[in-house]
Every structure is written in C-alpha cells, then in structure tokens.
C-alpha cells in the first residue's frame, strides 16, 4: 500500500492541460489536409488513391466539380503523396468537430481542360472547418456549467479503433472527469450519446432503442469517419452508413479514430448545446 502511494507521488501529475494548452503532437501526426485549390492542377491522382471517396470528382459539361469531405477522410495522407503539384498538404490540425454535417464538405469547380487537368478555379465553397477552438468553447462552458455531463457510449458497429481512444479519455493523461464529464452505464442516466459507426443492420434497432431510452434534452455525437459517413464501409447490405441515417446527430467528430483531444473538443462543443437546451427543456 505504502509503495503504491509512493509510486503515485513520485510520478506526480500527468494530466494534459488541453484545451487550455495545445497538446504535444508528434511531428509525424497526420491531421486535417489542406488544399490549395487555386494551385491544384489535377485532382484525379488524389481521388484515385483516396480509400473512402473523401476526395471525389465529377466532370460535366466542361466543368470539373471536386468535393472534399472531411466526414469521410481517414487521414491516411495518400492524397498528399499522390498530388505532384504540392497543392495538398497535411497539417497537424485536429479540432475538426462541427455541428453541421455540411461544414465538413468543401466543393470547388474548375473549367476542365482537354487533357483532364484543371483550368481556372470557377467557384469554391467551404463551411467553417474547426467550428471553434477548444480553448474558447471551454471558457464559454465554464460560465454556464453545473460541471456535470453523463455520456453513454454506443458502438453501433465500429472496428473498435474509436473505442480505444474513447477509453483513453478516462486515463490519467486525458482525464475527462476534470470537466465533470463521466461515462455512465445506462442511457437512462445519460445526457449525451457518443456513437461510433458505421451503423450496422444488426445494431440499428439497439441504437434506436438506446436513443429512445435517453431522456430529453439529449445530444448525439457521431464519432469518426464511420460514425459520420460509414467511412470505408460506406453503405452496403450490412451497413446503413453514418449515425445520422438512423438518429439525429448534433455534433460530428472526424478522425480515424479521432485522437482523445479531438474527441474532447467535440464533446465540449456538444456540452455547449446541452446547456443551451437545458434552458428550454426543464427536467423533472
């Protein structure tokens, strides 16, 4: 007993200070890909190697539409390697959670040249990637907060990669309880469902029932490429795709899997929504 205490004291505090302090990321960490649309001469090599169709091209009437969907991206970095013109660049940005699915999608239109390369960039539309930095969210919540949020995690068909990182939220380094957030055993005790996907045909009913058992006001957070869009599994005879194909989703956290800080960012974003809804949905 004494030795255990001694060990713990000698280790000291290991808890990271995210979101107040930026986390230590390895130089090699692969975060959000940045696209220099004006300089991008050809999207085809990137679209060809993209394992999930996160980069897609559609040619019609001399116009090429290029879509980049961070809700499908698994951050493999193959597009960066494949794009010879350097227009695709990996960044270390990980705070990617949004409340609107459309904000994860960028569309660019190019005049199409005869050789298949891009001509002039005709139009470009993008939602705000990184809705708000975690730092600001935390400050805002701190004012509102009763310092308590109960999460029920639901694996609706995941490969268990996301679960690894969700479990890591409970370790002493990420220690989610420092925000008053804890994981609970029953949806009846939960304010939030944290759902990984893709939603399989065999889990659809269980997910619907879990959602129904969660009292209002509640928020649903879809985790990872598969939870957002079905990811590499997409939709098929056994997979219904993303979580919002089955229940309404309030926050989307991209990643494959999202690192613990990315999960925290999304959960804090959702926590803001819970507080807002608390005002309009008195419990009792």
């Amino acid at each position, binding site marked *: 007993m004494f*030795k*255990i205490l001694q*060990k*713990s004291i000698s280790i000291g505090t*290991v808890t990271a200070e995210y979101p107040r302090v930026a986390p*230590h*990321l*390895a*130089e*090699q*960490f*692969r975060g959000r890909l940045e696209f220099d649309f004006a300089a991008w001469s050809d999207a085809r090599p990137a679209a060809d*190697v993209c*394992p*999930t169709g996160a980069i897609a091209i559609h040619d019609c009437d001399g116009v090429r539409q290029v879509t980049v969907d961070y809700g499908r991206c*698994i*951050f*493999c*970095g*193959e597009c960066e390697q494949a794009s010879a013109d350097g227009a695709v660049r990996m960044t270390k940005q990980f705070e990617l959670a949004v409340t609107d699915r459309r904000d994860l999608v960028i569309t660019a239109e190019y005049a199409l040249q005869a050789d298949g390369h891009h001509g002039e960039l005709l139009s470009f539309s993008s939602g705000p990637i990184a809705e708000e930095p975690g730092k600001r969210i935390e400050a805002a919540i701190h004012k509102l907060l009763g310092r308590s949020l109960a999460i029920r*995690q*639901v*694996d609706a*068909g*995941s*490969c*268990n*990669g*996301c*679960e*690894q*990182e969700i*479990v*890591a939220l*409970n*370790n*002493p*380094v*990420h220690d989610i309880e420092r925000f008053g957030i804890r*994981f609970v*055993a029953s949806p009846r005790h939960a304010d939030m469902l944290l759902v990984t996907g*893709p939603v*399989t*045909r*065999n*889990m*659809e*009913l*269980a997910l619907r029932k*879990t959602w129904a058992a969660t009292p209002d006001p509640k928020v649903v957070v879809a985790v990872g490429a*598969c939870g957002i869009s079905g*990811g*590499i*599994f997409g939709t*098929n*005879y*056994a*997979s219904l795709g993303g979580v919002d194909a089955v229940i309404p989703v309030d926050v989307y956290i991209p990643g*494959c899997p999202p*690192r613990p800080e990315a999960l925290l960012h999304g959960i804090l974003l959702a926590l803001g929504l819970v507080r807002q809804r608390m005002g309009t949905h008195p419990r009792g």
Partner: protein
Amino acid sequence: MTSLLNNLRECFPEQIRAVEETASGQFTVLLNGPDATAMARHLMSGYQARLVTVFAEDRVQVEGVFYLYYVFDRPGDPSWLILKASVAAENPTFPSLAAEFPAVNWQEREIQDWFGLEAVGHPNPRRVALHDNWPDVHPLRKDFPLDTVLPPFEGERHVYRPAHGEGVFHIPVGPVHAGIIEPGHFDFAVAGEPILYLQLRMFYTHKGTEKLFENLPIQRAVFLAESISGDSAFSHGTAFCRAIEQASGIEVPARAQFQRTILLELERIVNHISDAGAIANDVGFVIANAHAGRVREILLGLCETLTGSRMLRGMVAPGGVRRDWQRTQVEAIEKTLKVVQREFRDLVAMLQSSNSTRERLQRTGILRAEKASMLGVVGVAGRASGVDLDLRRDHPYEAYRHLPFRVPVYQAGDVRHRLLVRIDEVSESIQMVRAAVTQLPDGPHRAPTQPIPPDRCAIGAVEGWRGEIVHWVHTGYGNCLERCKVKDPSLNNWPAIVEAVEGNIIADFPVINKSFNLSYSGTDR
C-alpha cells in the same frame, strides 16, 4: 511436407486431382468432389495436423462450383497445407466436421450463411453470422450485389436455450453494454450467483467486410484490412499485405521487414499493458489501471512518432511500409522503451503485491487444456491453457527468424495465467524490439509498386497480440480481389469463454471476459 504429400497420394489415390505449390511454402491439394473429411481426419490423427481455418469461395459463374478450403499446419513444419474441395452448384452440400472438431463449428455455419452450402451432419446448424431476422440471402455469393437493400429490421427472433428449475433464471446482457466495449449479446443462465451456462450471440457489428474486399482495388483494400479490428490495425494490415505479397511474389526489403516487426511488437506491448490494467480494474484495483493507462499513452506517442497514427494506421503497404524513419525516430524507440520497461516493472510489482487481486484472478475462469485444444483456441488464451502455438516461431515471417524470443506457455488456464502470459510477452517483446532496432538494416523501405497478377491464391498469417490472424486472398483482374477471407483469433476463442465461465459467479464474468479480450468486430467483420 514432401513425404506428407506422398503419403496422401498413396492413401487417397482416387481422391486427389492435383497437388500444387500455390505460393512459396503453401501447398494446395485439389480434391475430386466435396468430401475432405477422410483426408482431414487422416492429417489430424496421423500427422498431428491442426485445422487452422475452413472457408468457401463462389466460383459458380467461372467454373460451375463452389470451393471449400481447409487450411492445415503441423508442429515443426513452417509450410501450410490447403485441401481444396469442390461443391457442385446443383448440390450445394458438404459433409460437416464440426461434431468431431468443434473448432470449425462456427466457421461451417458461416459457410452455410454466406454461401448457402449446407453442412450436412452439423450438430447445431442454426444461423450464426446472419441473424434470424435476415431474409434468405447468401451475401458472399457472386450474384448477390454488395449494395443490396434488404427489407427493414423486424427485431430479434433468436430463441435461447431455456433454463428451468427453482431459483434458476436468465440474465440477458447487451448488445449495448455498460462499459465502453463492443456490442454482443450474452444470455446467462444462473442458479443464484453461479453461472450454469452462457449463450452468445455475436455478429452485431457485421459490416460486409469480406464482400467489400471483392469491390475495392487492392491499394484501398489495405485500409479496409486495418479496419477489421481497430486494436490490431497493424497486424491485420500486415497479414493482408503478406497475403498479397505471397500471391504475387513481391519481395519485401529487409529494412521494411524489420520496421514491420518493430511495429507488430509495439502493437503487442501496447495492448498487453492496457489489458493488464483493465484486468486489474475489473477486480477493483483501479490505481493499477491508471498507471497502465499512463504507460500506454507513452507508447502511443511513440506509435505516432513512427507512423503518424497512435493506432499505427496508414503505415503498412504491399511491398513494405509507406514511410521511412529518420534517425531521430529510431532513437525515440530506445528512449521510450527504457521508460516503458521501468514503468512496466513497477506495474507488475504493483499487481503482484496485492493479495486480494491475486485471490480474485487465481482459479477464476479456468479454461482446461484439453478443452482449449479441442476448440482450437489460439493466442494468449491458448498459451495460458497449454496450447503451444505462436506463428512467429512456427511460421517465421518478416524479421522474426533473426530475433531470439521465448514463447510463454502455462497449463492452469485461469485469468491469472492469461495475465501472466501477457506480462511475459511484454518483456520478450521489449527485448525483441531492442534487438530489431540494433539490427535495422539500411536500404529501401518499400518494394517498387507492380501490378498484382490475377488468379493467384495465398495465405498471409501474422501472430497478432491476441493470437493468429489469417488472411487468404484470391487475386482477380485489374488489381482487384476475387475473394479475401479473414480469420481473426477471436472467432475460435469465443466458444472458449463459454467453457471458462461455467460455474463461476456472475460478478466474475467481466474479468473473465477481459482476460480473453476478444474482438467483436474481428469476429463479425
């Protein structure tokens, strides 16, 4: 292998149509007709061969038949033997081996579900992979499109074996569990606290993976392999790449072999340490879990430095690895391992210092050696119950032949010994990674990309941290796959949990389950 093949030719002259070395060290015996049972019995009783996996393939459109593949290995021989039996489309049945060899019970039922081939004589022919509410479809048949839309879900109709008697009742658990774990349904029949029997219902996370493999170009399919079981992303990815390399004769450069070996062992160390913590946690020793979680984070930081991903994703590729390492990255390995070794030693001392923990783990969830070998249990769970198997030693691949290591094997088969196997393996793996770093050769990290030749078949097998992972591929035209069979170690080990929990109190189920720590997604695919 030559003498064994000659013996088969002598004993079964009528049955054998051809023998071929389909990939290096992989021998395929093509049979006349659908019945491989006599030869399988002969191999298992006469040659101590082990039936590693059984699966099927639909070749009706091309050759008018389905094929059944029975993969064997045997002690002291690094090659693989594959019996290939054909089932005529007009008579879609095959004789079952499950009554004699329970290891294939679920696998034969998968063949029934996926392909609509009836396993004649199967002791429990109910559906296993497709739930009872599914319509009568066979998704791995070639005439079943991947994107088929099936009628909506109508609820579970599975009937569990009833339990009768005074004070006997059922406890249904799942598919949504209380912790952060994957979905599955457990139906416990209990008499007070002790568990009479456990019935499992898996395949809740079935997501059409094997079918999807047939619809993706090979370079994208690698990422699908990484998503079979997220905690074994690198092992599954490597098993898949090895199958492709074996099928197409791609030579992996020496440097990449060592890099892969280092990453495979890191995956083992990470998962074993977190399991050690989780086992302690399930018996109330929370502080040990906290330390394990802390050490795990140190290791995940190293994983990120080496691959760009904490979960080792996006690194392995056919022909080697995607990214080479700079000197600073290689130095980080030794630096981190030094810390991890010290911390792990303290963690083990902590676990062993607690008598109450030892009390809870000892003689809990016993899987007897004879049951383990009968059920074909593999990996950590097998080695804790006397099953002395380890692909790294038995079928050496990558750089393992250059690295000395010991394979821990215990007989007791309880939770404590499943923990001890992990503890021993962490120490071995740390030494292996160190040795691999000092021997890490210079040179290319990836063979030049080349088109994959069609119509080649090969096995890729890797000893993942949980146990043996086997991928089998049949290549098609245009860099695509005709078929990819995936066998995760969890598949054979689930029925072992049923054995291990019998007679234990229900409150010990979580720790027993955790001591196996099987992958639901790897099972369900």
